[in-house]
């Protein structure tokens, strides 16, 4: 009987049974003997020098850690080296960690009173007024003046997006266990090797003395990309000093107050267009609020800038971006990573242009959408797998967009669309620098995947196993996936940037191809019986023809792009000014859907987060502190806030992706916000700032 292929089928999720029975063990579910609970004492001021730290409690049984206890370097190693693990003499944001307390008794731990006094300095909360830029990026294509000269009309616009909180339902948490002269760190995280590196630097330990083990993770969305290096460092410091396992789990309030969020953005457009809608020139200015330390701002800005001109052909582009410092908790990775902000701006701006020219928004995009052979803002020639027109036309057709544009005119209902794209993998030379590795090991019953890629809900284990199973020609059930433990798995790079399938999946495919050759006609079990174990490891190889220049910011920014179009219908209540999305349709071209249900799950979930970004999710900052840091007051969509969604997946294989797959994890969140804002515009409400809360809609109406 022929074995059924796994790729393209909705095989059962590898850890599905554990998740629906309560057997899956998240970090707070695991019992550690002799554990100490850790509490972080944080700054209550946004800027200033630490004058004094006073411990107003009986210290019996307590372990206290401050910056002087750091054996290695007092930094959270990431890109820049500006962020301390524990503040030494000064603080730059509210909730900055200063001191750690630990005790085995949680009541005594919670009751301990620590008084910190400061010599406050004047904080700056305005990213445009900041003296400090973490990163500056300039993208130049053609000659802006020439493009403006060709224009019949110049359209300007300014767009603002606020913070967004990732709101993984499982808060950040880790347990550090001192052992073997070093430390083993268990925790909820996306990137075991990021944490590994950060711990070696902080603790001054060689690589082999640090072990990082990812536990089942209840959501990440980027919020557990770099932040775990901070919390892990704290737990590890405590474990090393006390000689006992140190457990540090944030509650929801602390998680929202202290951990990273999406960068707020101000994006200005000045666009030259011809009367027929053709874009002749784009001038774009981008400011991202990085918060108090650099963390990943440079890379977030990079992706934001590369996507800032949208999926359009335009010969003359001048884009300038800066990520600046403010005295707020550092912002970091969140699904989309800069692209949701800048694509919100360009897509909202396109509808402004459409209005000015009296052109249908769909036609305007048709006229300007990238086609195979066209070049992007960085001069990259898009390949045959460029599907901008296809997704646009398919979405327009399925939703009867043009007919509804006419039919809804003058009513409380609007329909709007957005066209967007998203590069998969690390930008430019990033994947070469990462030099990721993946391994495949022969076992008694089949094979075991060994990668540092983490399962965080998106289906990593399942999807990787499908790729390996089909490439090797063995049943899906014979493919196991190792825990993401740095003692076992090689560094496959971080679980971010929509690279887990396209890049790491491809590495695993190459491992499987190699293993297939070595196995000859034997099954894995037979080979194992005869010859014993076998491990095949492959390292990233840049596809031929990809060139990127980091100095000039020109060239092939990404190996491949996904393409998508969202159409949303919004109903505005004239009494309460609440905008309700009542229908949502999206067409996503992702190369190949390895697991159609999981791919749809990414699209549905990311789109839902995008709708929250558009309408509901507002971080209220007061004095540099999140004032609404509780789930009661930070509003994410419930079932009743989420419209029915129609998802259509198109497949246009990417040559270097496993079975043609590109990435899909992030792209869905890029589109909903501008589609919603454009639908509101259609309903007569002009907002250029998200979230488009009822309060803002009211102001726009009255």
């Amino acid at each position, binding site marked *: 009987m022929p074995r059924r292929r796994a790729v393209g089928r909705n095989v059962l999720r590898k850890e599905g049974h554990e998740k629906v029975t309560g057997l899956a063990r998240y970090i707070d579910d695991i019992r550690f003997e002799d554990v100490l609970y850790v509490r972080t004492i944080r700054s209550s001021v946004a800027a200033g020098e630490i004058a004094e730290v006073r411990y107003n409690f009986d210290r019996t049984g307590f372990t206290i850690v401050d910056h002087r206890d750091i054996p290695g370097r007092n930094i959270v190693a990431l890109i820049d080296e500006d962020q301390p693990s524990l503040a030494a003499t000064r603080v730059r944001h509210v909730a900055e960690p200063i001191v750690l307390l630990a005790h085995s008794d949680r009541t005594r731990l*919670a009751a301990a009173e620590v008084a910190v006094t400061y010599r406050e300095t004047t904080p700056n909360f305005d990213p445009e007024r900041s003296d400090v830029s973490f990163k500056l990026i300039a993208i130049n294509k053609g000659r802006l003046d020439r493009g403006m000269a060709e224009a019949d009309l110049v359209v300007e616009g300014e767009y603002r997006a606020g913070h967004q909180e990732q709101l993984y339902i499982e808060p950040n948490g880790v347990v550090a266990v001192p052992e073997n002269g070093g430390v083993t760190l268990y925790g909820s995280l996306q990137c075991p090797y990021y944490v590994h590196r950060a711990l070696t630097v902080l603790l001054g330990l060689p690589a082999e003395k640090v072990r990082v083990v990812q536990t089942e993770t209840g959501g990440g969305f980027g919020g557990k990309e770099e932040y775990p290096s901070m919390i892990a460092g704290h737990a590890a410091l405590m474990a090393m000093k006390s000689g006992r396992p140190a457990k540090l789990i944030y509650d929801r309030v602390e998680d929202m107050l202290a951990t990273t969020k999406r960068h707020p953005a101000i994006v200005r457009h000045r666009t030259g267009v011809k009367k027929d809608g053709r874009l002749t020139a784009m001038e774009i200015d981008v400011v991202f609020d990085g918060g108090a330390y650099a963390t990943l701002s440079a890379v977030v800005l990079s992706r934001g800038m590369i996507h800032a001109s949208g999926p359009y052909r335009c010969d003359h582009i001048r884009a300038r971006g800066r990520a600046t410092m403010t005295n707020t908790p550092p912002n970091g990775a969140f699904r989309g990573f800069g692209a949701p902000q800048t694509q919100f701006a360009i897509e909202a701006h396109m509808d402004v242009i459409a209005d000015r020219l009296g052109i249908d928004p769909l036609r305007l995009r048709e006229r300007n959408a990238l086609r195979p052979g066209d070049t992007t803002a960085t001069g990259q020639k898009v390949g045959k797998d460029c599907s901008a027109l296809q997704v646009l036309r398919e979405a327009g057709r399925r939703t009867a967009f043009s007919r509804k544009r006419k039919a809804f005119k003058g009513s409380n209902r609007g329909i709007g669309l957005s066209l967007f794209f998203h590069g998969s993998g690390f930008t430019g030379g990033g994947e070469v620098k990462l030099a990721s590795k993946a391994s495949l090991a022969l076992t008694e019953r089949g094979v075991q995947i060994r990668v540092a890629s983490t399962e965080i809900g998106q289906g990593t284990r399942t999807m990787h196993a499908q790729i390996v199973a089909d490439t090797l020609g063995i049943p899906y059930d014979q493919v196991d996936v190792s825990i993401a433990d740095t003692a076992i798995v090689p560094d496959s790079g971080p679980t971010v940037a929509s690279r887990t399938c396209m890049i790491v999946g491809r590495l695993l495919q190459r491992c499987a191809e190699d293993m297939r050759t070595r196995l000859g006609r034997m099954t894995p079990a037979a080979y194992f019986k005869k010859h014993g174990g076998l491990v095949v490891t492959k390292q990233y190889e840049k596809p031929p023809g990809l060139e990127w220049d980091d100095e000039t910011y020109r060239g092939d920014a990404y190996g491949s792009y996904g393409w998508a179009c969202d159409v949303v219908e919004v109903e505005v209540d004239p009494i309460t000014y609440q905008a*309700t999305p009542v229908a949502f349709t999206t067409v996503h071209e992702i190369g190949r859907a390895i697991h159609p249900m999981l791919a749809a799950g990414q699209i549905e979930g990311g789109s839902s987060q995008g709708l929250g970004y558009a309408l509901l999710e507002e971080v209220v900052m007061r004095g540099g502190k999140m004032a609404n840091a509780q789930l009661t*007051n930070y509003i994410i969509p*419930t079932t009743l806030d989420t419209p029915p969604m129609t998802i259509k997946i198109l497949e246009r294989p990417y040559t270097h992706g496993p079975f043609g797959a590109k990435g899909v994890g992030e792209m869905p969140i890029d589109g909903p916000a501008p589609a919603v804002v454009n639908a509101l515009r259609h309903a007569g409400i002009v907002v250029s700032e998200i979230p488009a809360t*009822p309060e803002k809609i009211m102001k726009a109406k009255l």
Partner: protein
Amino acid sequence: MQGTIAGRQLLQPRSLGDAVKMLRDEGPIVPLAGCTDLYVALNFGTLRPTRFLNLWNLDALRGIETRGTALRIGALTTFTEIITSAAIRRRLPMLAAAAREVGGVQIQNRGTIGGNVANASPAGDTLPVLLAADAVVVLRSAAGTRRVPMTAFYTGYRQSVARPDELIVGFEIPALRGRQWFRKVGTRAAQAIAKIVVAGVWDTARADARPRLAMGSVAPTPLRLSQTERALGSGASLAEAQEILQREIAPIDDLRSTAEYRRQVAANLLGQFCSVRR
């Protein structure tokens, strides 16, 4: 979880008589019903009281029944019981409407109407309903029973006339004539705090009818809008009534919304109430 329970005490009365004696003799103690508000404060470490009285098993505080023309609702009646009660759906549908919007099913199964009133938030979802219905709050202490009109119950932000030794045991709702209306404007479609919440009754079958209207989240306490009612009852135009409404309410900016929004939406809701009454 920030708060701790160490050092806190839970008294467990076996009867209502027990409970009021404890309140009198062993105070101060905070009565606990469904805990859907109190435990949030406990979890956040902001709950200062240390002594609590468990009411959950006191069946004397449960039950929905008609007594003469009045509908009597026990303080421990949960929102789920309100939603499913045939008597309430028949006589006080605006209360069922409010209960449906209090939160998700989990909150509805434990939250109680007595708790909602005792918690005294100006945003409490059932409070405008009770005000508009001219409900009577029944209080019991070791000294006996006291009845206070809902309209006289609150005296200031989270303050009421209830004494520390008194327990809310139930509510008495007189017979209501006319159409009932309830609307909550939340921060989202479900499981939301009200930015503004309104309940109204208007018996337009009678020529001399004066509407009854109450609003929450527009003042330190939920408000019975008597001046606006009077204007509407005496034939004022909508615009005139809206002007009077603006003078009656005193909304603020807070984490969830703005005074400006509340004022505008309150005026719009008044317009909706006037059109819905027919």
